């Protein structure tokens, strides 16, 4: 394992310190907790948004704390859901009296820990609502199982629900909009190689030089299947097909797309993928109203990427285009 770190136990704490030192104009840390909140928290009269999860997905989630997106971000150990007391601390620190929306990615751990925090907040009389992001089409959906993972589409939820909260909508409305984003968002990911959880010290899986892992999430867990590497165009084609099979988009409908790097893949390759993605959507006469290319929801240093499609209506489009000012997501 070759990493620029000091020791694996200190990683999350040192990283959070580094984030706060880099962006004091945006955020601060709740003393004694792995929680980042807006520099001016709590924002009175505004619904607050709290998200989080295991670390290793940077800039998610701390990088999205700021105007127009999150109020608080809770950082667990690497790839490990944060504990309920940490989430509860975030809720208390950001509640401006109008309630708190928890944006949770659909992992048993995240769901249970956030749920317990919700129960704790309930006892203190803080209004809390939850949405659960499950955008990953690689996983088969079923109410009987854990269901689908929450992956890069989560960033769209932060952006759009965050804009709604910034506009002064109430908790119910913000939740409705967040859920609408979730209902309209689908993601598919692939990987060219493993990542290494620092405390485990070993690659999450092994791939041959000519193999890729298709349909994997953001925790180094294996995907749906392993296949021979092919061209960027073929891979992109396969992935967008999977997405559109699951969520058909009609000609002239508008979408936003995100080509998200998992950490180790250079922008060069992401843009090459975006080119093909755009061409394919054009062929289908789908209108791409907005494109995001970059590392938004990573898997430590994993080489690979995901494609996210968000189907837009007027409301979502307007909120997606609203101003945002956070360390990792800015929009003028």
């Amino acid at each position: 394992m070759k990493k620029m770190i000091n020791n694996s136990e200190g990683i999350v704490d040192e990283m959070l310190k580094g984030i706060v030192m880099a962006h004091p104009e945006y955020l601060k840390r709740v003393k004694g907790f792995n929680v980042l909140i807006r520099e001016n928290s709590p924002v009175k009269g505004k619904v607050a948004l709290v998200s989080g999860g295991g670390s290793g997905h940077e800039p998610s989630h701390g990088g999205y704390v700021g105007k127009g997106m999150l109020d608080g971000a809770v950082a667990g150990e690497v790839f490990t859901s944060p504990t309920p007391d940490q989430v509860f601390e975030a809720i208390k620190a950001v509640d401006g009296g109008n309630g708190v929306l928890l944006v949770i990615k659909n992992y048993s751990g995240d769901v249970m820990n956030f749920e317990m925090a919700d129960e704790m907040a309930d006892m203190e009389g803080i209004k809390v609502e939850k949405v659960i992001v499950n955008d990953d089409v690689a996983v088969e959906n079923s109410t009987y199982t854990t269901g689908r993972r929450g992956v890069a589409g989560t960033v769209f939820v932060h952006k759009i629900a965050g804009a709604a909260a910034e506009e002064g909508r109430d908790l119910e409305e913000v939740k409705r909009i967040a859920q609408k984003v979730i209902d309209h968002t689908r993601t598919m990911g692939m990987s060219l190689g493993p990542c290494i959880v620092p405390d485990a010290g070993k690659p999450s899986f092994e791939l041959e030089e000519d193999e890729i892992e298709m349909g994997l999430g953001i925790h180094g867990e294996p995907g749906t299947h392993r296949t021979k590497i092919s061209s960027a165009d073929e891979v992109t084609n396969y992935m967008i097909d999977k997405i559109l099979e699951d969520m058909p988009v009609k000609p002239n409908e508008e979408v936003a797309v995100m080509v998200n790097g998992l950490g180790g893949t250079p922008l060069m390759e992401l843009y090459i993928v975006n080119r093909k993605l755009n061409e394919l959507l054009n062929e289908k006469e789908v209108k791409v109203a907005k494109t995001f290319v970059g590392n938004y929801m990573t898997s430590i240093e994993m080489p690979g990427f995901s494609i996210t499609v968000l189907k837009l209506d007027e409301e979502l489009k307007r909120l997606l285009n609203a101003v945002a000012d956070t360390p990792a997501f800015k929009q003028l």
Partner: protein
Amino acid sequence: MIDKNIFLRIINNLSDSIIENKELLNELDRPIGDSDHGSNMVRGFTEVKKKLENVKESDFSTILKTIAMALISTVGGASGPLYGTSFLKASGAVVGKEELDEKDIIAVYEAVIDGIKYRGKSDKGQKTMLDAIIPAYEAFKACVENGGDLKKASDEAQKAAAEGVEYTKTIIAIKGRASFLGERSIGHADPGATSSYIILKSIASVLNE
């Protein structure tokens, strides 16, 4: 009968067993999870050992609650709320007790299983820790009903848990992170079932000392 002394030995022993098995549990979590089950559990039980120092003189229920809170606030992941809830429910099942007999242990098992089912919205056959704990409970209860003592019943429980772990290799994961793998989860033992087995084995070994 489990008295205070034995009880504390059990807690210490099972904490050590988890700590010793960090690599194994991380390794098991690699092919079907995110390689952290060992790290998570070790974080938790290291904290448990620390916290235990302060409540050694307290009653069973307080000690179990302290353990629960230590796990809830340090483990994270899926296993944190689940083991945390287990110990919390166990704590509720032993209120006022000074010693624990076979019946008390059965009550603890039931509280633990209820807790996990509630928190995890899960049941047996889904490739989770329940696939070690539920068979262990059933074996324990059956042994006691057939007149077996604590020692004997704990041994039976341990054996059933081991078989439960083996069984998890044969099934598809329905709950937890491994469920994302679908068919590909077959062939691998569940890390949480394994940590449950390690705990039950360590309990049995203290009782057999």
